[in-house]
């Protein structure tokens, strides 16, 4: 679901084909029939933006029919934990959970807590939303007490199992059909297949991609999938899991070692100015003194990072240089930055292998922002649209950007390709793979390592001797990497990887595991979860023992974090007593002879802690993890069916309509995610959705995605004739029914209109898109690839120009997988006429400049409803 694996990850899809040949059943749930659907046994068409409804229906099916893997659920999930009496569900509050604050549009989560812990988790989550704090939980769960009240009979009405059951009781097959357009028998086929193929002997894998993440409720989509997989016992077991298929060679790595505003390496939070004023406040907010689990060692990870950053200058006396770190005051994400560029607040912008003029949502805002900078540095091997907005972007045609009046100074710095430098990518299963350098980069092309090292060197040279406090951090920075390569000025990437791995500073030896890290400044390590990649002084990421010469887990190919573990939480592959759930699915188990955990993979558990271990009453940290707490990074050691904290928009996923939808939410008065992040301004208008009037002006649903033949914004594919010829033109896919309704002709031109702009494309009429029956009306969906722009061998309008900015509150990702639009035959107007054309639509839709999209639409709060 939410993944077109055969098209976006074709070589990964070989394993699906392999599984299919061995008897697996493949189900594809998607808004349109794709090359993945073509290979699936069953294709289920679903309305874009309605996945929580169908998945909630599956949860309801599981709980109603008691199809859950009860032993697993009791042992490894929080099903039996009692929830606070104060908690009120969306079912009681018309689509809101208890604690909603209409001023900040966020929740006070104290009533979501486990029973007896209401006081510990109070306060608004506004700051957490603005800083996308949910991302910190990629490596560990949010704080939660270990001592909780439970009812192992699962009968207490306040236990998670019953709360969950009530929450999803209305997600019946009829309701699923009504919301998603999925016929009941197809839906039940999915439920039966999924549950039948889960349990002791069998596991089911769930695959998703950005079809799930790029929504205003995206994180909760994934949560819903995780709840099902926990209920069915599919987590931590071979052939199970929730697989995120990521779309860039090192997008996982760029989150682990983040180029993100709100994170430091290893998911340590960037400090927030008021919550983390001191080192102690910062560290304690991560490690939560008294909490159980591995996260209690966070101080060692934090100090080791600062030692890697500042070297000898980081001392206990100066809090390891913590004071040199910049502080967040709110949302500094990429879309906030774009708004700030338009508003003239940002001077300079680096683009590093990224092309926001095509690849980011709301392309026009992106380009207008870039046209209002002092300077822009573009590093890319190919000329991209983000470097040429000042002379050939769409706004040149409309007159919104005039070349002679655009002040932005642009540096195009040619970048070395992947073959021209060495280093590691982290692929989608957290595996680091080292690349050897094949050739030298041509001409002025250089690696990012070269560019940033020498930029830093120049900055430090210019600041040398400065006594300003602001310059202390950069001058104290450990910035002395050995050089090598043909020019003699290329930083040695292996040395950087060693710094990331970390050292025992007393001996100079490379660390083998993050358990060796200490909070006293005697160890370093630039990313604690990567510690071990240079274990024993060997570049483990460079290991290339042929797959055919090792076990099916292939542990000696590359290196996966943490600790070269290939399946996370694999303690759950054994029963509470440490025995495999079945021989067929044996993966990691307790070896009673040698008294240790063993198996095909590195056990995700302390190696010699027996299943029978029970912590002493006052234990904290690792000691407090029980012998059957399979989810060791969670505060209570359990997989969460219900999330008492850590999520901005609710402890359980709830169906909300997308920010732009032609349909009224059939379940609740609350139409869309009430905590979604919006930029409510005239240059980011949102198409009206019910209960607002005029949604019929943009009557159709559109969704976008990739083609096999192209790569994201096209910089690496539209420039290559062999790829460009395979998909040479921007097109739009419509059903024959919609073609008839709008007079669209196959291979003719059409244009698609939203409140942001209108773009044109050639029409493909295809049965792969089917109109969906939603309640008593027909909903048409159209599909667009988003690869085109105005540079390259083949060019065309950009689908992302259509997309407005409404973000998921947990991670601040944009809702670009669903929106509403109109489609009309023929090409779009050109020049200033385009602006008038789009404005005419806005006017008819009631989108005056002072228009504000209502956030709360519950019936109790009817004033917000009808406008």
């Amino acid at each position, binding site marked *: 679901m939410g993944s077109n694996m055969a098209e976006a990850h074709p070589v990964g899809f070989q394993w699906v084909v392999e599984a299919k040949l061995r008897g697996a059943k493949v189900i594809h749930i998607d808004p349109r029939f794709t090359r993945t659907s073509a290979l699936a046994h069953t294709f289920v068409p679903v309305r874009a933006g309605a996945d929580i409804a169908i998945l909630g229906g599956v949860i309801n099916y599981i709980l109603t029919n008691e199809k859950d893997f009860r032993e697993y659920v009791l042992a490894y999930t929080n099903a039996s934990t009692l929830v606070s009496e104060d908690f009120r569900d969306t079912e009681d509050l018309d689509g809101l959970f208890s604690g909603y604050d209409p001023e900040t549009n966020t929740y006070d989560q104290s009533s979501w807590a486990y029973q007896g812990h209401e006081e510990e988790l109070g306060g608004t989550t506004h700051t957490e939303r603005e800083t996308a704090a949910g991302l910190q939980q990629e490596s560990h769960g949010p704080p939660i007490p270990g001592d909780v009240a439970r009812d192992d009979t699962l009968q207490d009405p306040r236990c998670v199992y019953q709360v969950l059951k009530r929450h999803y009781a209305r997600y019946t097959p009829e309701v699923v059909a009504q919301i998603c357009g999925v016929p009941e028998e197809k839906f039940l086929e999915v439920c039966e297949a999924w549950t039948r193929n889960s349990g002791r002997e069998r596991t089911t894998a769930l695959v998703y991609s950005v079809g799930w993440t790029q929504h205003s409720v995206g994180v909760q989509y994934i949560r819903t999938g995780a709840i099902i997989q926990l209920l069915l016992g599919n987590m931590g077991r071979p052939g199970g899991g929730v697989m995120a298929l990521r779309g860039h060679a090192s997008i996982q790595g760029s989150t682990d070692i983040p180029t993100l505003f709100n994170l430091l390496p290893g998911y340590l939070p960037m400090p927030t100015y008021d919550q983390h004023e001191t080192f102690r406040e910062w560290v304690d907010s991560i490690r939560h003194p008294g909490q159980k689990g591995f996260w209690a060692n966070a101080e060692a990870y934090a100090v080791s990072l600062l030692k890697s950053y500042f070297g000898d200058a980081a001392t206990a006396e100066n809090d390891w240089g913590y004071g040199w770190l910049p502080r967040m005051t709110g949302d500094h994400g990429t879309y906030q930055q774009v708004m700030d560029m338009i508003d003239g607040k940002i001077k300079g912008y680096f683009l590093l292998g990224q092309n926001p003029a095509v690849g980011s949502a709301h392309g026009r805002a992106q380009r207008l922002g870039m046209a209002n900078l002092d300077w822009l540095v573009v590093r890319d091997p190919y000329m991209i649209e983000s470097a040429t907005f000042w002379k050939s972007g769409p706004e040149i045609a409309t007159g919104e950007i005039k070349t002679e009046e655009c002040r932005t100074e642009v540096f195009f710095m040619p970048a070395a390709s992947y073959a021209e430098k060495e280093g590691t990518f982290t692929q989608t299963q957290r595996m680091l793979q080292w690349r050897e350098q094949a050739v030298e980069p041509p001409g002025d092309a250089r690696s990012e390592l070269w560019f940033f090292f020498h930029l830093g060197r120049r900055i430090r040279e210019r600041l040398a001797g400065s006594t300003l406090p602001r310059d202390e951090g950069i001058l104290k920075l450990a910035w002395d990497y050995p050089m090598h390569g043909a020019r003699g000025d290329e930083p040695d990437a292996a040395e950087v990887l060693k710094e990331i791995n970390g050292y025992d500073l007393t001996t100079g030896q490379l660390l083998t595991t993050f358990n060796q890290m200490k909070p006293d400044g005697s160890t370093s390590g630039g990313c604690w979860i990567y510690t071990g990649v240079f274990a024993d002084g060997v570049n483990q990421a460079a290991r290339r023992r042929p797959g055919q010469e090792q076990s099916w887990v292939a542990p000696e190919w590359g290196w996966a974090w943490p600790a070269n573990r290939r399946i996370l939480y694999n303690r759950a592959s054994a029963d509470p007593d440490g025995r495999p759930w079945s021989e067929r699915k044996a993966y990691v188990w307790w070896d009673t002879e040698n008294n240790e955990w063993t198996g095909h993979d590195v056990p995700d558990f302390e190696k010699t802690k027996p299943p029978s271990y029970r912590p002493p009453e006052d234990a904290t940290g690792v000691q407090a993890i029980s012998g059957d707490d399979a989810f060791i990074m969670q505060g209570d050691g359990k997989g969460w069916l219900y999330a008492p904290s850590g999520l901005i928009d609710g402890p359980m996923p709830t169906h909300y309509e997308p920010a732009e939808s032609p349909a009224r939410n059939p379940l609740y008065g609350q139409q869309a995610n009430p905590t979604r992040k919006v930029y409510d301004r005239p240059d980011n208008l949102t198409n009206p959705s019910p209960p607002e009037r005029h949604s019929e002006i943009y009557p159709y649903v559109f969704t976008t995605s990739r083609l096999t033949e192209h790569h994201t914004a096209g910089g690496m594919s539209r420039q290559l004739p*062999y790829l460009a010829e*395979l998909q040479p033109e921007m097109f739009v896919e419509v059903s024959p029914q919609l073609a008839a309704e709008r007079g669209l002709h196959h291979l003719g031109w059409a244009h698609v209109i939203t409140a942001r702009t209108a773009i044109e494309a050639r029409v493909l009429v295809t049965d792969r898109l089917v109109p969906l029956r939603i309640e008593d009306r027909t909903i048409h969906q159209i599909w667009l690839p988003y690869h085109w722009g105005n540079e390259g061998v083949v060019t065309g309008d950009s689908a992302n120009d259509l997309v407005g900015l409404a973000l998921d509150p947990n991670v601040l990702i944009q809702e670009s997988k669903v929106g509403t639009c109109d489609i009309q035959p023929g090409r779009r107007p050109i020049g200033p006429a385009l602006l008038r054309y789009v404005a005419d639509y806005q006017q008819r839709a009631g989108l005056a400049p002072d228009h504000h999209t209502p956030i709360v639409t519950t019936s109790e709060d009817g004033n917000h409803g009808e406008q």
Partner: protein
Amino acid sequence: MASNSLFGPIDPATDAGYEAAPPRMGFFTDTSVCIGCKACEVACKEWNLVPDDGFNLLGQSYDNTGGLSANSWRHVAFIEQPARAHTTMPAAPQSNVAAARTDVRTGTEPGIGPAVDALAAAGTAGPEFLGMPMSDLPGRSGDGERTDFRWLMMSNVCKHCTHAGCLDVCPTGSLFRTEFGTVVVQEDICNGCGYCIPACPYGVIDRRQDDGRAWKCTLCYDRLGDGLTPACAKACPTESIQFGELDVLRERADARLATLQEQGETTARLYGEDQGDGVGGDGAFFLLLDEPEVYGLPPDPEVATKYLPDMWKRAGLAALGMVASAVVAFAGRRR
């Protein structure tokens, strides 16, 4: 085995004079696992330095290559087959669908309809054609067993026929049979006469416009000599394209077909595997999920030179006749 045959099952390498020839090598393309990614097309071009084939949106589903040509030695065909009756999708009323099909007369001819690929030609035949195969190709209606929409994909390639028409008619010796039993154009010999082009029963071989020479799949002859897998088969993510000894591939194909038929794929079939067919079987054969015509393949390909001996016989008789009449004529004058 007959020596130097022009039809029937033979070992073509031995027939072409190779002593102790290696086993005949070929492709088995299992379309049931093809994901239409076109890695084969790109890998072929990267290895063989084949030029791009133009940047035209053809509207034949996701096929913008159009067919095999001098500049496309692999070609992935895409066929969209709508669900038959009893669809379970809650679609708009059927009348609506019908209206769409008759109203939406695009006036746009579908694709470039390359002469070498029957797909487009087959597509244009139907009055309701929307530019994509919608309802008129063979196999798109009929047996009533399939209730779901189906999207067929198939990577087409030169068949490396046992009896290769192109080779038989080549006057320069440019086209030749390799020791692996494959058929290869030698670019250093081809003079661009073009005789081979109409001789191919599949419409595969083609002349490049700029240099006039004939080009097609070589089954990566240069790689084969070194024991390497051809570029397309090497890249294929799902092993839809399998390379190997033809005998082994045929066994594998038979087993795969049996499995699919057991699973209810009753219209699955092998194509080009039968050594008794009009070209003596193909060195590159296929497992199809529908009739060959659906994929734009001729149902009963025949090598034109099959009748060559017969024709020579007739030509010989005719020549004799002419000689005889000439003799008679001369004799008559003498009289």
